[in-house]
């Protein structure tokens, strides 16, 4: 009996591991800097050798500070930037090589939830028109079908009664409602994959939870894969299963959410966790430990580990010379740090 159970479990995990929806391999996104408009002046290495897979129906979080390259990573996944090196494979196709009809098909397969809902919605279009646009572009010719799909998606994001909202302009909606419209627009082509760029950072605390729960519900109902990009570690455990910590263009730690809270391994992850506050009046009595300095320039990143100038546990002669490889410290938990050699 027990033997049987383990085998089914193994089969299950194996099957899950093989069911990769999107696979990012050695991705580099470099932006060229030019002097006087034409002379080459180096590269901004926004994303530097990033590799990970996202399974079908899995929510992952990419956590990092502004300027660490997480938006460049996201835009490259959305096929808005071209990778300098490496590839993004979606259902067996290399995304950066798609053109024409294939690229339009890919755009129906990925949804994008922007950070600032007001900035993301055209102010001169009604909600109904905003949601109809992707359907027209996506080639849904029948008007009745378009209307039916708009109704369905509006009900899914809990904007009811639907007919009240369709004629409204974005400025007539509250921040939470605007974000729902953004989510509805991302969902209207029934994508398999959602990229959410800080979807709740502009919202009030009480609305934030509502939107996170809504997205979690959509993800489970439609078996969506989600990349959730954020700098706020405290919301991560409510939303995703795996977490990737990004620093200066590189993923420094990859792990399950519970593993990272229990056993954070990279000194930078430690710093992020220590810097995140829980509401507790005792916080006012102590000072927080913050690594000195600021994230490095991505034009001339420091040699060796990119975190070494700020790291308190630096190994002189190693961390500042050679780049750390990725070590697997427990199953499905990798960290790029020489401490785990």
């Amino acid at each position, binding site marked *: 009996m027990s033997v049987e159970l383990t085998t089914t479990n193994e089969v299950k995990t194996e099957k899950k591991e093989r069911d990769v929806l999107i696979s990012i391999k050695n991705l580099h996104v470099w932006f060229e800097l030019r002097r006087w408009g034409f002379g080459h002046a180096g590269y901004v290495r926004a994303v530097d050798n990033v590799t990970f897979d996202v399974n079908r129906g899995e929510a992952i979080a990419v956590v990092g*500070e*502004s300027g660490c390259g997480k938006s460049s990573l996201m835009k490259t996944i959305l096929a808005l930037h071209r990778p300098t090196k490496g590839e993004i494979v979606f259902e067996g196709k290399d995304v950066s090589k798609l053109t024409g009809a294939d690229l339009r098909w890919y755009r129906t397969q990925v949804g994008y939830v922007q950070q600032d809902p007001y900035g993301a919605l055209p102010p001169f279009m009604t909600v109904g028109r905003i949601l109809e646009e992707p359907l027209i572009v996506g080639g849904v010719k029948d008007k009745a079908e378009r209307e039916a799909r708009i109704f369905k998606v509006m009900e899914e994001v809990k904007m009811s009664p639907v007919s009240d909202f369709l004629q409204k302009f974005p400025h007539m909606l*509250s*921040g*939470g409602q605007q974000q729902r419209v953004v989510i509805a627009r991302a969902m209207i082509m029934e994508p398999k994959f959602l990229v959410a760029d800080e979807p709740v950072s502009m919202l*009030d*605390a*009480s*609305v*934030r*939870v*509502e939107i*996170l*729960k809504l997205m979690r519900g959509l993800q489970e109902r439609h078996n969506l894969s989600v990349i959730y990009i954020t*700098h*706020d*570690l*405290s*919301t991560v*455990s*409510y939303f995703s299963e795996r977490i990737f910590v990004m620093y200066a263009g590189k993923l420094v730690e990859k792990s399950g959410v519970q593993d990272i*809270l229990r056993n954070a391994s990279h000194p930078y992850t430690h*710093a*992020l*966790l*220590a*810097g*995140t*506050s*829980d*509401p*507790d*009046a005792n*916080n*006012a009595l102590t*000072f*927080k430990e*913050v*690594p000195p300095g*600021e994230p490095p320039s991505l034009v001339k990143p420091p040699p060796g580990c990119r975190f070494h100038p700020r790291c308190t546990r630096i190994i002189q002669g190693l961390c500042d010379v050679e780049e750390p490889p990725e070590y697997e410290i427990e199953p499905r938990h990798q960290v790029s740090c020489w401490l785990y050699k």
Partner: protein
Amino acid sequence: MADKMLLRVENLLLHFRAGAGVVQAVDGVNFDLNYNRAVVVLGESGCGKTSLAKAILRMLPRNVAAYSGKVFIEGKDTMALDDEEFRQNVRWVAMSLVPQAAMNSLNPVLKVGDQVAEPAMIHLGVSKAEALEMARKMFQHVGVAVDFLDRYPFELSGGMRQRVAIAMSLITSPNLVVLDEPTSALDVLTQANIFNVLKRIKKDLGVSFILITHDIATSSELADDVAVMYAGQIVETGDAMRFFTEPLHPYSQKLMASVPRLRQTTELEFITGQPPSLINPPTGCRFAARCTKRFEKCSEEPPVFEKEGRTVKCWLHEK
């Protein structure tokens, strides 16, 4: 008791004229603040917390419909002063402001050192050399290297610009600094850094703070006292220790239950519905329509009840 009191706000009222009617942004606000304490004004966007800061500092826009009440600072009634007296004796001298998005409020074509020194020259009447020397000292207090005095704002990171704005608010050594959302646009580590700076300033210089924010988790980094604002009114005040463990008002309780925590998997809650319009706020308790504990009495406006040194504007706490 009275000699410890730095600021007392009594029945402060600030209404604006708008196209659709009168917006009751600040509607009868009372609170006290002692020397060397920090009070956090918590509330969602649109609840009138920035208007409260403007009303205290008398930085009023043109469309004011009503502005009344009393603001005492260091025992002086500022409402009795005319605008020019207020500018000379209160603003910057007794209290100063770090505005929302302060890091983007620096003048891009002036060196940051000159900008930090300017209030000292205007309000304290010192020479430029003396003012720059004061700016140098302030930079050390907020943890910005002194050679940045000669830099321009674009050469500084967001966190550094925020610290420069804090240095500017402190240069005239006021006893009270109002911080309007000082860290809301910053990263986690930069936020932690700014709060370290504020804590150190509070300890070293004995300054009091009014911290206006919607971020409950980070506000606990500085809070001695908490005031919760909802729809233009303060619904709860009290010390932070007891507030963060046991909030009294149903709104505060819901708000606390909506805060994600790192190592806790309790179900998060959210508040259904939306805050009422401030143009025609409902009669009775303004939170009643969204409150799960409402009963008949809530259709009357609740008075402020005292409970062990805390105050709460809710009928549930009637004795």
